[in-house]
């Protein structure tokens, strides 16, 4: 089939050229920059060294921020699962005839601007914000709670709000795939509902949990907008460092090195969870 081969080449060429030029090449450039340094006059010296990486791993600032970002991302995933899993379970098994509508109601926030939602939490958490003035108005507190805004707390709540749907959708998909006969036979064989849940439903839904959790983790790990808008100095995340190095702190080579470290962390986590997920699927 000579013609099929030509067709394949013809179809594959444009996207192949695109990703080579606009994905592969930029990543290579990023990699190169991470070995270059900044000269005396802020010019970029094209002599490859490991200076940037040495700086990253000896200066405690970077490691602290990386661990903080991992911690924040982990909290976001945990909260998203705590909220998202029961919601997905409810949607699949108990939502009755409003199921379609309720499912849509999870998707809608995904289409609503990230910025709009982050801003909404800022409005809620501020000192003069909705929550504090409500608490003052109802005499629940005497002073505005200042820990709400400009803290890791605000960042975690906002990112959780954004990533809950990312967890719900794959969990719903994997719960739907469970054959109903399995649940019936489990209960016929005398398992109580919670036993059926723990020993049949939960294990079979793990692939969905893993893929939702991975996505929420990676995207919140690399977020820099929520910390910039809602977090204070105590919630600077690693992507903020990159953004600053490419902005006001002007040091592109160092910024590129931080970005490469982020990329390595992302790819490592992804390959671990993909392996886990595959194992779950064939277990």
């Amino acid at each position: 089939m000579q013609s099929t081969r030509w067709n394949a080449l013809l179809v594959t060429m444009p996207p192949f050229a695109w990703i080579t030029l606009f994905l592969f090449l930029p990543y290579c450039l990023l990699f190169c920059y991470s070995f270059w340094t900044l000269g005396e006059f802020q010019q970029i010296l094209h002599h490859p060294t490991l200076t940037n990486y040495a700086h990253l791993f000896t200066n405690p600032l970077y490691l602290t921020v990386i661990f903080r970002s991992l911690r924040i991302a982990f909290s976001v995933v945990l909260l998203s699962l705590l909220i998202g899993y029961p919601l997905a379970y409810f949607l699949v098994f108990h939502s009755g005839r409003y199921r379609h509508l309720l499912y849509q109601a999870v998707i809608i926030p995904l289409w609503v601007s990230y910025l709009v939602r982050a801003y909404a939490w800022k409005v809620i958490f501020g000192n003069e914000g909705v929550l504090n003035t409500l608490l003052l108005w109802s005499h629940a507190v005497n002073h505005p709670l200042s820990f709400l805004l400009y803290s890791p707390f605000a960042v975690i709540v906002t990112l959780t709000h954004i990533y809950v749907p990312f967890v719900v959708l794959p969990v719903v998909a994997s719960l739907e795939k469970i054959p109903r006969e399995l649940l019936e036979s489990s209960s016929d064989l005398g398992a109580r509902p919670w036993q059926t849940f723990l020993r049949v439903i939960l294990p079979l839904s793990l692939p969905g949990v893993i893929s939702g959790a991975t996505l929420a983790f990676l995207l919140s790990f690399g977020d820099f907008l929520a910390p910039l808008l809602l977090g204070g100095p105590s919630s600077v995340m690693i992507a903020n460092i990159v953004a600053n190095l490419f902005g006001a702190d002007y040091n592109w080579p160092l910024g590129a090195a931080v970005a490469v470290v982020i990329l390595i962390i992302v790819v490592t986590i992804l390959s671990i969870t993909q392996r886990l997920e595959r194992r779950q699927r064939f277990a």
Partner: protein
Amino acid sequence: MNSTRKPILLTGFAGGAYAFLYFPIAVLILYSFNRDGVGGFPPRHLTFDWYRVLFADSAMWSAVENSAIVALAAVVISILIGFPAAYALDRYAFPGKAAFQRLILLPLIVPGVITGISLLLLVVSGGFHLSLTTVILGHATALTAVATTEIFAGFAKLDRSFEEASADLGANGLQTLWRIVLPLMRTSLLGTALLVFTLSMDEIAVTFFLIGRENTLPLEIWSRLRRGATPEMNAISTIIFVFSVAAIFISQRLVSGGEAGPAPTPEITGAAQ
């Protein structure tokens, strides 16, 4: 299975989860009508004044215009690249397919900051200036990943027998593509276009590094938020919300048949196997 018994606890919990998802949006909309600013409980003096301020705000509207241009261009490019990419992933076996797939889907899971700065390095190395064109490039690159997954899902649902019939009846590949595949993929493509458009209208992380002198809407809002919030921001956010909801309902209609429409959640692993 006790699916007949009403699980009160679970239903209550689900209600709470929905409240969590919608509370901020409700607050935002409510306070866009509040004369006295973005906070303060209870809201008083409801007014349309902030919408009036917004409609007279020419900087905001030129940002809307810029965003629309960028989003349209991003839709066109991401579908022009995403369609053949999804087709190739669905139909062909070729050397390097796995790497091809990983690379094209990478922007879905790699933080926007990485996509943004690596493209910035490309633009600067090429000696180009930052402008709306570089923003379009960034959006197209990031959103081609979304377009590819959505169109790939569309191909997976496609009934191949129509194409086989077309080939049996003597149509060549191009004729089959034009007269059979494209019409059958119409809803999938329209849904994808709508999703890419919406995501592009909202993109900040990549845009942040590629923006020139002209602002897109999210960056205009962003720069004003940094200076201090006014209910005008709530008003524009409310309008964005209304448009987003309209977009999802239109895409639902397109993909009718009770099925869930496209959602910006990439099947990171589903497609990667």
